[in-house]
């Protein structure tokens, strides 16, 4: 069994990651990079807890053998979080009580980040679709959907302020 070195840009930093065959991106992030904000839920692609952005698109990190994405750019919840304070999506989730146990939250927030990158002004239906791969077993979906829309409004407002 031959290990290999995979180059990834993780949250803006270039990394060389040594992996055994079949190591998932989830394992590489959690075990090798110490980025435990990305959660291991089902390991089957069914729960969305491990959602990260790969080259700007939401993907389930438990379903990606890291050797197949050499050179990719990965963004995780840790990278989303600014040096000080919180990202507008995080603020919206926090202030909208869109977390209960919190286990699904980082996946929900990354799914939201993926949606808002493509669609800054989503409808409620768009928000529902965007998180349809993410399970909240506390079943707090309504507050999460509200938070996705609130996050979009906050980000649009921040963009307007910046332009003004």
């Amino acid at each position, binding site marked *: *069994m*031959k290990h*290999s070195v995979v180059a990834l840009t993780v949250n803006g930093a270039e990394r060389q990651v040594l992996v055994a*065959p*079949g190591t*998932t991106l989830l394992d590489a992030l959690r075990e090798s990079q110490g980025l435990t904000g990305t959660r291991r839920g089902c*390991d*089957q*692609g*069914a729960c*969305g807890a491990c*959602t990260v952005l*790969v080259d700007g*698109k*939401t*993907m*389930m990190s*438990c*379903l*990606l*053998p890291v*050797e*197949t*994405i*050499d050179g990719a750019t990965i963004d995780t919840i840790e990278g989303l979080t600014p040096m000080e304070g919180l990202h507008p999506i995080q603020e919206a989730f926090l202030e909208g009580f869109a977390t209960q146990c919190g286990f699904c939250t980082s996946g929900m927030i990354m*799914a939201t980040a*993926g*949606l808002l990158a493509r669609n800054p002004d989503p409808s409620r239906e768009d928000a*529902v*679709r*965007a998180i*349809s*791969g*993410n399970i909240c077993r506390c079943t707090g979906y309504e507050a999460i959907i509200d938070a996705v829309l609130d996050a979009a409004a906050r980000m649009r407002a921040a963009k307007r302020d910046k332009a003004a």
Partner: protein
Amino acid sequence: MLQTVATPGSLPETHALLSKLDGARLIAGGTAVMPTLNAGTDEFSSLVSLRAAGLSGIVVKDGVVTIGAATTMTELADEPALAFLQSALETIASPTIRNMATIGGNLFVKQPYGDLSACLIALGATATVSDGTATRIEPVEKLVASRLGPKDIVTQLAFSIPSPGSFKFVKAGRKALNAAAIVTVAAVVSVSDGVVSQCRIGLGGVAECAVRARSVEEALTGNPLDRTHAEQAAAKADRDIEPFDDSHASAWYRARVTPVHIRRALVGE
């Protein structure tokens, strides 16, 4: 335990690796293969990824669309020429999975998943299969019902874009989004002089693989496309399906509702 994961940069390299590596499994988006690996399978000892083999992309020319097998569902949904497929694609899994799952991989997903195969059957799509020395073209309805050889790779799919309004799709699941199929109905129906001149119907979720509803097609052809004739034709579907029990629905229920959803797909009521 997995010994090797290879990401070849071309189709010939991929075939060379399949010859060299014993017990290799092809992987594209990973949404079907990785769950088995994560569950601890010993069915394969190597993975050969199609991610970098140059099999992605969509070409539309003279009304015919050719799609590389490693093209993702999201890439399909973003293609303006495939706007008619949008509502069908949105019923398949979640946006996150659609960023990963490929059109080629969808052909090999176990039922009751693989709704895109039902669409491809309705569209009369063909698949190009290469074994490294020869290339052949197979109808999707035949391909999904057969076993591929160890070196066979589906490289692309092709179909004619249906005339506006002729593609029809209904999927019944336990949830509105991100649900497996109880029954999926895809159809392309052409009407001329007030009667159905041609139709192809693909069904998912109601047999071991996606199937063509030939008995329904035959009953519908030559008749007006109205509720009465759609219902009469849909009633023939029991000849085309072999429904199964699973956690989503019983075989009895699938058989009971299949004609209803075929009628709804055909005439919208």
